[in-house]
């Protein structure tokens, strides 16, 4: 009955099916998030990680932790009853990526083109 109700209705974001399992879910989420947070601060601080790789490692840890929050706290799953939520989330991620990486790309390109070259310096009066 539970399953028959849950699937065709679609599931609201943040809704969990089973109360007794959820405390455990939140605890797992808290543990994983704490480990990933500490790993981020350690990676930025320790100097043991190869310097140029640190930003990439930090990005990976951050994306991982966002995933942990989505799955264990917001209860977004890949199941069929979550299709609408996942679609909306995918569109949100798409827009965020466009805005952030698009801005960075355009501004870096502008900066590079605005850099005064020797030829343009001579053209100035």
């Amino acid at each position, binding site marked *: *009955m539970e399953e*028959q*109700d849950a*699937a*065709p*209705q*679609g*599931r*609201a*974001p*943040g*809704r*969990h099916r089973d*109360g007794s399992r*959820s*405390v455990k879910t*939140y605890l797992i*989420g*808290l543990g994983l*998030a*704490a480990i990933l*947070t500490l790993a*981020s*601060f350690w*990676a*930025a*601080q320790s100097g043991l990680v190869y310097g140029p790789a*640190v*930003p990439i490692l*930090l*990005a990976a*840890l*951050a994306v991982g*932790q*966002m995933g942990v*929050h*989505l799955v264990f*706290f*917001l209860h977004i799953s890949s199941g*069929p*009853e979550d*299709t*609408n*939520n996942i679609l*909306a*989330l995918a*569109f*949100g991620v798409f*827009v*965020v990526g466009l*805005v*952030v990486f*698009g*801005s*960075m790309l355009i*501004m870096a390109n502008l900066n590079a083109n605005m850099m005064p070259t020797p030829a343009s310096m001579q053209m100035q009066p």
Partner: protein
Amino acid sequence: MIAAVASGTPGEEDAGDIPLSQRGPASTEIVARFGFWLFLLSDIVIFAALFAAYAVLAKETAGGPSGAQLFDRTYTLIETACLLASSFTCGMMSLAVERRQGLAIYLWAGITFALGLAFVLMEFFEFLGMVAQGAGPTHSAFLSAFFTLVGTHGLHVTVGLCWLAVMAAQVATLGLRPMVMRRLLCFGLFWHALDIVWIGVFTIVYLGAG
């Protein structure tokens, strides 16, 4: 339970025998929570614009202090711990709401409020300290972007605290009627989403400055 089968959610095996046009509307709970989910995603798009501005301007310190000189990582770690812990206690509050345990709701809401308030106060004093050092938002493009991004997040958390206080009052006066429970669960989504934004803030702003 045929009558309860609802909504335009495609791809459900169980609902396959009922045509889309003959299913009733989705329940209020699903509509309200899905709408709130869309609001949260659009809020995250606002933060994306602020993140983009910060990423572009992070190096433009105009001769003033840079992030590496201003930020104290231990302080940020404590802030992060407060917010993460409050996200967990907020989840516990959502569970108590679904089980209709009044006392547990007040308890977890109180802890969530205290941790959220600690976070906001720590951020407020960090801002005060920076302004006192002469590193206010007017000093450089980097600091303008920093105060806008982190300040907007802090403002969201402050609004969330007000919301939580109002919800506690509604539980006390109106009781656990469906409308109040729906609002409490939406608050949970809002709080978790703010914690997700904070992951981006501490990674890009505080750890990226090194």
